[in-house]
Structure formats: structure tokens, C-alpha cells
């Protein structure tokens, strides 16, 4: 700590240069924060998927339905302990930009299947008794300023007409990265008002297995059970389903790693150049430090500490801004339902910043360490 004033004052001796470098690091870490947030949002299902849940969809595609009659047949398959189902509604609230996912569900089995979601019991009871009722996630309610008791109109796109719902409850996630943008309503309401072609069908099933280790066997058993029927199934673990869904957008992780790699390499050059200049300009001062008794290792440590302080300071600013940005919610209006920068990813960002600091400072620090006092003083 006693060296801190020396480190900080050396760091900001050229204020413009220091702030420009600090800005570069902050911008890079802000970008890193946003990229990992987007990556999390796009692959959120993979992160939060239940290990004991399977998703059963129509073998042709996700948009083809499956008969409601499959529910009981699924329950008969060994290893299956619970089944629920849902259908994509695809309604529009006021404007098409106001996207959020809407599912027609079987309330009883749905909430048991997803214990990570929580609805106040009184609100849930109201919902169960209200055929036109709906429950929305906290994020969507906050986004549109909805309160329990509001009447919410949706314009159907797959299922024509204007559909009105009573907001009976608001659910929350038990984990910070649980999706709280969904809108649930009774499948029975859809069945009643929906078109004839959808009666007796659901979008997909979600199945719970007795043991995640049995998942592969159960997947095979389900698809074999419905093979050669009019509605063949394709079953996958929820994790694999979410991953394949995310892959439709492209190899997000590769794209993010590529962008991140380029940004950090550039950052390394910028910070390295700053540190090299900072050391070159004060060769004489470093020699004086050695003259008064600073060891070679001490001088090396001082220069490295400067680089590290600069990088970490920039990192804290950049990641802090990224966190603040994510706290304001999904900027796309619904495409990224879980717009959340997890603390461990911020820690990862700081670790990367620290690495940039050490790598950019190592060459100038070794130069300073090897400095011969007599030669350096001669240059003053």
C-alpha cells in the first residue's frame, strides 16, 4: 500500500494518454460484457435447462403440432415421471416490436415441471379459476408497466383475432438468469377460441425423467413409441434442444470468441505501447529509484503494478458500465429474454483485463529491471 501513491501518480503523469488508454480498456471490457451477455441470452436455455427434462417435438419441425393424446401415452413409458405441454401463440401486443413469448399451457402440470418459477399462491389460485387469465414474467410486466388486474389484448397471428386476457399473476425466477419474459395462458382458452385445425393438438411436450442418467434410454423409447405414426416425434434433452435452437443463429460462441480475441489483441498493443512509452520517458527516474535502494525486482514490480492497475481500473469501469447497461433490460425488445451479466462472467472479464495488464507490462518491466543505473543516469 505504501507504494500506491507512486504507482497511481506515475500512471496519470500524462493524463491524456492515461485516460485514452483507460478508455480503450473500458470500451473493450464494456464490449466483452455485452458480448457475453448476448451469448448468455442466446444460449440461455442451455445454461438453465433442467438436466432431468426432455423436450418432445414433431419430427418434421418444431412448428408442426403433436396430438394431445400423446400425453397419456408418454406417461406410460418407463422412466417418465411427469409430462406437460405448451403451444406457441405468437400474438402481438400493440406493435410487432413488442415481442415476448406467449405459451398456451396446462397450468397444473406446467408449474410442477418448472419449479424454478414462482407465482404467489393467491395469484396462481385466481389464474386457475379464470379461463381468460394469464400469468406473465416479472421482466415483461415491468417492461410494459402491467399490474395484476390489467386487461391485456393480443392480436393473434397464428390464431386470428384479438385475444384479451386478465393478468392474474406475475411470476419470478428463483435464479437470476431464469427467463422472466414469458406469458402463460390456459390451453383450454386456445382450444375454445382457436381454429378447428388446432383442436386436439399441442405444440410440444416436456417430459421429466426419473433419473438424468436414464435420459438417453427414455429419448430412444419415446421416439420408438411414436415411430411410423402420423406424428412421429423427435425427442432431446432440454439442454440439447436449447443448444440446437441457439445454433440456428450461428456459432455464437465462435463469433464472440473471434470478436473478443481481436479486441483483446488490439488492447494488448495499445496498453503495451502506453507502458513502453511510460517507461522510456522515465529511464532516469527509474535509475534514481534503483540508486536509492529499489531492487531490480522492486522496479519490475512497480512497472507491472502500474500496468495491472491501469488494466484493472479500465476493466472495472468497462464491466461496471456493461452491468449498468444490462440492468436496464433487453435492448432488443424481446429477442434476448435473459439479458443478464452474471458475476462470474464479470470476474472472468477482470481476469482477462489483469492478463492484458501483465502481458502489456512485462516487456517494459523487464527493460526497467535490466536498466543499468550508470547508463541510465548518463542519459538524464
Amino acid at each position, binding site marked *: 500500500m*505504501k*507504494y500506491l*501513491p*507512486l504507482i497511481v*501518480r*506515475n500512471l*496519470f*503523469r500524462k493524463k491524456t494518454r492515461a485516460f485514452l488508454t483507460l478508455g480503450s480498456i473500458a470500451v473493450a471490457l464494456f464490449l466483452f460484457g455485452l458480448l457475453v451477455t448476448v451469448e448468455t441470452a442466446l444460449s440461455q436455455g442451455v445454461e438453465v435447462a433442467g438436466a432431468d427434462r426432455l423436450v418432445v417435438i414433431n419430427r418434421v419441425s418444431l412448428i408442426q403440432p403433436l396430438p394431445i393424446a400423446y400425453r397419456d401415452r408418454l406417461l406410460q413409458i418407463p422412466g417418465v415421471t411427469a409430462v406437460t405441454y405448451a403451444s406457441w401463440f405468437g400474438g402481438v401486443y400493440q406493435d410487432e416490436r413488442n415481442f415476448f413469448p406467449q405459451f398456451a399451457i396446462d397450468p397444473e402440470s406446467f408449474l410442477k415441471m418448472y419449479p424454478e418459477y414462482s407465482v404467489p399462491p393467491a395469484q396462481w389460485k385466481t389464474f386457475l379459476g379464470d379461463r381468460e387469465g394469464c400469468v406473465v414474467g416479472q421482466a415483461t410486466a415491468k417492461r410494459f408497466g402491467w399490474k395484476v388486474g390489467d386487461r391485456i389484448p393480443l392480436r393473434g397471428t397464428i390464431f386470428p383475432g384479438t385475444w384479451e386476457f386478465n393478468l392474474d399473476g406475475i411470476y419470478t425466477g428463483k435464479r437470476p438468469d431464469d427467463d422472466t419474459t414469458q406469458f402463460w395462458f390456459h390451453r383450454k382458452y386456445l382450444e375454445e377460441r382457436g381454429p378447428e385445425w388446432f383442436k386436439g393438438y399441442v405444440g410440444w411436450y416436456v417430459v421429466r425423467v426419473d433419473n438424468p442418467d436414464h435420459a438417453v434410454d427414455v429419448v430412444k423409447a419415446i421416439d420408438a413409441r411414436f415411430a411410423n405414426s402420423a406424428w412421429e416425434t423427435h425427442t432431446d434433452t432440454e439442454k440439447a434442444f436449447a443448444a440446437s435452437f441457439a445454433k440456428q443463429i450461428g456459432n455464437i460462441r465462435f463469433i464472440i470468441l473471434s470478436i473478443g480475441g481481436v479486441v483483446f489483441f488490439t488492447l494488448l498493443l495499445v496498453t503495451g505501447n502506453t507502458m513502453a512509452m511510460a517507461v522510456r520517458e522515465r529511464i*532516469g*527516474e527509474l*535509475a*534514481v*529509484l*534503483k*540508486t*536509492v*535502494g*529499489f*531492487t*531490480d*525486482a*522492486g522496479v519490475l514490480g512497480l512497472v507491472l503494478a502500474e500496468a495491472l492497475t491501469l488494466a484493472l481500473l479500465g476493466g472495472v469501469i468497462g464491466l461496471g458500465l456493461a452491468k449498468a447497461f444490462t440492468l436496464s433490460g433487453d435492448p432488443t425488445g424481446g429477442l434476448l429474454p435473459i439479458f443478464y451479466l452474471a458475476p462470474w462472467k464479470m470476474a472472468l472479464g477482470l481476469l482477462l483485463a489483469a492478463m492484458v495488464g501483465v502481458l502489456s507490462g512485462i516487456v517494459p518491466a523487464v527493460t526497467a529491471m535490466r536498466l543499468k*543505473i*550508470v547508463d541510465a*543516469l548518463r542519459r*538524464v
Partner: protein
Amino acid sequence: MVRVDGSDVDGSLIRVRNLDKTYRRGSEEIHVLQGLNLDVGAGEFVAFMGPSGSGKTTLLNLLGGLDTPSAGSIRVGEDTVTAMSGRRLTGWRARHVGFVFQMYNLIPVLTAFQNVELPLLLTNLSRAERRRHVETALSLMGLSDRMKHYPRQLSGGQEQRVAIARAIVADPTFLLCDEPTGDLDRKSADEILGLISALVSEHGKTVLMVTHDPRAAEWANVILHLEKGALVDSPQGNAGS
């Protein structure tokens, strides 16, 4: 007591024997110091004079452990400086030597107080003890009211006084001053030399100073000249006193 003849005498604080320093410039060898002998007792104020390139600064660097000789030995008290290297030499330098340079060499981003405090950061002194030492050193230099000033806010003479405070703050065994008044006007130079002289006469410090200014050298008890790589008495012949 100051002697340059290499005869062993008791009571030397600094004892230099057969010191050689040779530089190589391409294929050419430059013998800066050759067989130099010197004995300096504690509490002496010695001035080294000589033409440019005569090896005055080289001698000072060798005495301070900033450079290593090609041959010969330097002893300070019980320590053989020429047998030390690396961390041990750095530690010895921090404990025993105070340096004053012509260009002051203060750290511009630190205040006068922080500049003087630098050598003490390497010690185990508490913050309060460091403060006390720094305030004492700066008050000795008459700079109690300039502690929070940065070097750019001080005159040349004041900067050099801060540099002297930095050199004495850790209470070193001896001071090495390389042209301490070379960049100052006459009045400031006399003030600085008066302070250095007071450190010798009132505080018993040992000072070895390089200068090319005869008026500055007059402040010393002994003036030695470097000629052909060796030390000789001044024309006044006051070495051996």
C-alpha cells in the same frame, strides 16, 4: 584524515586500493582509473576536481556501488563493496550511501515530501516514523513550508535541497555529490554548499563531492585532483591532513 598514497592507516572509513576502471569502445580500451588509492576518514568533506573525462563521476559511481571496477577494491567500514553484487549491493547502498546529482533527479509527479520519503519506503519504518524523518530532513534543509510542493513549483536551489534531504533522510554513512551546484546560480550554489558543509561540521557526515568549480571545491576540507586515472593532492597539498 584523507590520503591518496595507499599506505595503510587506521581509522579510514573509506579505503580504496589499486582501483582500475577500463571502458571498451569498439576495439579501443579506455583506462579511466588506474591504480587509484584513497583513504577517507569519517566526517571529512572531500572535493574531487579534474578536467572533463578524467573519471570523477566514474570514481563516485564506483564508491557508491553503482558501477563495478575492472580491478581493485573498495571497503567502507567493515564492508567490501567490490565483493558485493545484486540485492546485497542494493541493500548496502540503501543503508550507507546518499546520492546528490547535478540535475537533482527528483520524481516530478511526487511532492517534495514524497520524494524525500522514497528511500524510507524500503525500510520497516511505520508511516508516522517515516513522516517524522522526512519532516526532520526537510526542516534541516529549510523547506518545512515546501513539503507539499511539486518539483516544478520549486526553484533550482530548492529542488537541490529536496534532493539533499532525500539523500540524508535514511541517515547514510556518507554522501556522494556529483556536481551538486553545476546547474545553479552563484547565490543558490553557495546556499547548497553551506548546507552540505553544515552536514559535515554539525552532523558529522562524510561527504565526497565532484566538482569542476574551484569556488565550490573551496568549501571542502580536502581537494583532490584526478590526473591520468589517479588522485593527486591539490596544489595546496591539504591531503594527508
